[in-house]
């Protein structure tokens, strides 16, 4: 493991018993977990390559408890790592040896469903899918659907700005959250946003979403709920080349169609998925595309025809339209099982998450193929084709010495490539610890300093989730200094004032 986390503070470790006692005074009963074997389940999140048992786990049940825990830790200079369901794929909830792990799992109630205003007010530990379950009888749903939606919490979704296969049409978490209650590191409770659409002043809610637990702890979330589309249909398309598949995607969008979902798989992913679930994916194609349309039947029928026409124009050699719900689900079954299917090909796989401008896809896959040969590791690709979010799955065997390191190196090369072609390090999984050290590939030191000063505005002692997102921990005082610009050359053409 090449990851370097902030060095544990021995003086904090020495105070462990005192810290546990203080937490027990705030959260009584079984809300404080400190026995070594009971800490083990918290030692990692969805990024299991990294493990570290926390110093202690606290599971508060009320916002007042959260506030008092944070205030105590703030006043006593103890670090805190917040955690929802622990499904992060980027290590956002990775514990620290000298930090309190603050679990929000007991915040599991739906507080209010307001159909007239089409919002739901929920606690952060409610799972993503549970929101939809709570409103589906009235014909509504919560649109963002990360693949872990059965387990991941809405609080975690807010922290990570989670996406899903439908986010091209329906947006990410940030486009579907209207308000939060937030507890800051010093224990202060603020409400940002609400049931209305716009903020009165600065859009602070906008930076909370996707801040990866570094700015505050969310204790309540107001989300928009939408009427569930009347129907959904899918088309399964196979192409002889990645280029023709990519061209089809671009043409669909150029024709004014924003599908509910548009997923692409490359040859290795198609073969792995078909071998696993046997849903009849064509094996003689280089790219498989699933295009899902949703809405009124009249719209789906019309757009299916349009997509089929565009696909034929781009030389599709497979073209199947789902005739019923069962068939639609079958088209998706392979894609949804792609990760475990690829997982059967090797003992371990490493899932990447870059985004690229879609037009660069053929070139990116080509270069990824060269990298694969160079690193001696196979890769399969699934791709949210509509928005350019690429999920390369690198196959490796952690039991073979050096393979994990090589897989990480390969992954880093892929992400550098994504940035090089005009894309980004992460489309939906977050930076966490995983992509932390690659941040300088995308941002200059000045860019990062501007982000880190936002952190200082919320948490000047840098106690909340340290070691995540930013490669270097700068003290806020150091970041606050104004540097004299260039030293001289003061804008000679402009009037002095």
């Amino acid at each position, binding site marked *: 493991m090449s990851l370097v986390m902030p060095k544990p503070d021995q003086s904090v470790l020495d105070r462990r018993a005192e810290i546990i006692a203080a937490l027990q005074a705030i959260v009584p009963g079984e809300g404080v977990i400190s026995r070594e074997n009971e800490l083990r389940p918290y030692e990692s999140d969805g990024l299991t390559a990294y493990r570290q048992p926390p110093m202690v786990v606290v599971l508060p049940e009320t916002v007042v408890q959260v506030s008092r825990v944070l205030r105590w830790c703030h006043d006593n200079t103890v670090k805190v790592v917040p955690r929802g369901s622990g499904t992060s794929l980027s290590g956002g909830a990775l514990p620290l040896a000298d930090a309190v792990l603050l679990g929000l799992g007991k915040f599991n109630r739906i507080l209010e469903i307001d159909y007239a205003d089409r919002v739901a007010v929920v606690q952060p530990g409610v799972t993503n899918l549970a929101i939809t379950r709570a409103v589906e009888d009235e014909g509504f749903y919560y649109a963002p659907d990360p693949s872990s939606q059965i387990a991941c919490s809405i609080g975690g979704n807010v922290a990570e700005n989670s996406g899903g296969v439908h*986010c091209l049409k329906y947006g990410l978490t940030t486009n579907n959250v209207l308000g939060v209650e937030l507890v800051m590191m010093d224990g202060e409770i603020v409400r940002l946003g609400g049931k209305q659409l716009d903020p009165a002043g600065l859009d602070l809610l906008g930076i909370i979403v996707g801040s990866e637990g570094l700015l505050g702890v969310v204790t309540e979330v107001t989300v928009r709920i939408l*009427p569930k589309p009347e129907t959904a249909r899918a088309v399964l398309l196979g192409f002889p080349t990645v280029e023709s598949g990519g061209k089809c995607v671009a043409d669909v969008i150029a024709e*004014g169609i924003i599908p509910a979902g548009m997923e692409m798989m490359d040859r290795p992913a198609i073969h792995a998925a078909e071998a696993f679930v046997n849903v009849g994916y064509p094996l003689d194609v280089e790219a498989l595309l699933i295009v899902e349309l949703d809405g009124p039947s009249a719209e789906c029928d019309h757009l299916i025809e349009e997509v089929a026409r565009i696909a034929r124009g781009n030389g599709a050699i497979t073209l199947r339209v789902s005739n019923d719900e069962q068939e639609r689900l079958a088209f998706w079954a392979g894609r949804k099982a792609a990760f475990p299917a690829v997982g059967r090909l090797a003992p371990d796989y490493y899932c990447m998450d870059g985004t690229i401008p*879609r037009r660069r896809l053929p070139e990116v896959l080509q270069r990824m193929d060269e990298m694969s040969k160079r690193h001696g590791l196979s890769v399969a690709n699934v791709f949210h084709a509509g928005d350019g979010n690429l999920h390369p799955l690198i196959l490796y065997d952690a039991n073979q010495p050096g393979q994990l390191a090589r897989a990480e190196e390969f992954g880093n090369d892929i992400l550098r490539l994504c940035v090089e072609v005009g894309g980004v390090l*992460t*489309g939906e999984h977050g930076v966490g610890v995983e992509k932390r050290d690659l941040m300088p590939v995308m941002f200059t030191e000045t*860019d990062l300093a501007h982000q880190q000063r936002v952190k200082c505005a919320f948490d000047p002692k840098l106690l909340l989730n340290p070691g995540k997102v930013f490669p270097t921990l700068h003290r806020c005082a150091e970041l606050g200094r104004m540097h004299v610009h260039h030293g001289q050359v003061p804008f000679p053409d*402009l009037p002095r*004032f």
Partner: protein
Amino acid sequence: MSTLSPTNSEELCDAIADAARTETRLEIRGGGSKAGFGCERDAIILDMRGFSGVIDYDPPELVLTAYAGTPLAEIEALVASKSQLLAFEPWDHGPLFGNPAGKATIGGVIAAAVAGPRRLTMGSARDHLLGFEAVSGRGERFVAGAKVVKNVTGYDLPKLMAGSWGRIAAMTQLTVKVLPRPRTQATMVIEKLSPLQAHAAMAQAMGSHAEVSAAAYLPAAINDGRALTALRLQGFEPSVEARCALLPDLLRDHGTLRRLDAQEAAELWDAVRVAAPVNDGRPLWRVNVPPSGGCAVVNAVEPLGARWFFDWAGGLIWLSFDGDPAAIRAAAGRAGGHATLVRAPAELRAIVPAQHPRAPGVASLETRVRRAFDPAGIFETGRFLDDAHAN
């Protein structure tokens, strides 16, 4: 009033660094179409129109990158030529403030979080700003966000920049999401509903499969005695037709629906977007509430002489009102929302903050965040009457 007109980032960095050194306040300005918003102030104008032109636009990628001072009209014409649009429906405030149209810039509409009727379903400027390059109050150039539609790398500073009114940084370039222009639209209207009935009808329509993209209500008092509830549907023709066909049955308890002809509909939504129905010369307010709170707000202020209409299914109330501003702020607050004073005589703007006062904790957090980008407070011009001046 003096003006600085940098034409590249180096000049801009120098101008801002100089201002920070000399404790001079700068007002970042595009076309000046919203200069009449907020308190009168006496700051050096930092004219951003030297940063103009589209940098990259590839329609199937759904992104457009332009310099911040590019006229909004130029960008709208370009994307329209590729059958696309800015889905948040930004609009030119110039005429509202008695200035000529055509001056608004893309940077200005983003910085002011301008959005139209479709904000209800398609999001606002914040939802469509993907990335930017700017110079902060430190005189340093920095970037945030990206030039692709899906990105979670680092803090989402574009959200902060949208609606920041030039108080964080001077944007030089920005990347916005563009979307296909709906191929067809239709507007269905019902007449003679009370505000309460209209709210219920709009809520029912918004919760249905009709996929209504915008919903507005003009009460009888401002619409020649005929209260009008309007629902806009957009998309591909077969879909729009099918969805229009759902509405008469869905809303049968509220009355009979009628379809406006295309020109009438276009005029209606243009008017709603720019607040024309209540643009009567009096102070103009924009009240943002949960949709179900809209009726309580108008019930409180109509007896005091307010003229008003609903957009965003009741979540946005445009009001013309020359009574006590505290009455509007109080009603908006009780409804769980806030009130913005958009246009008023200078004397009123000198004492009534344009933006609704925030809770103390939020206000101080906003100040700390602004200071993070602008430690010397050079972008605090006094426009918002809330700036405990720098440090």
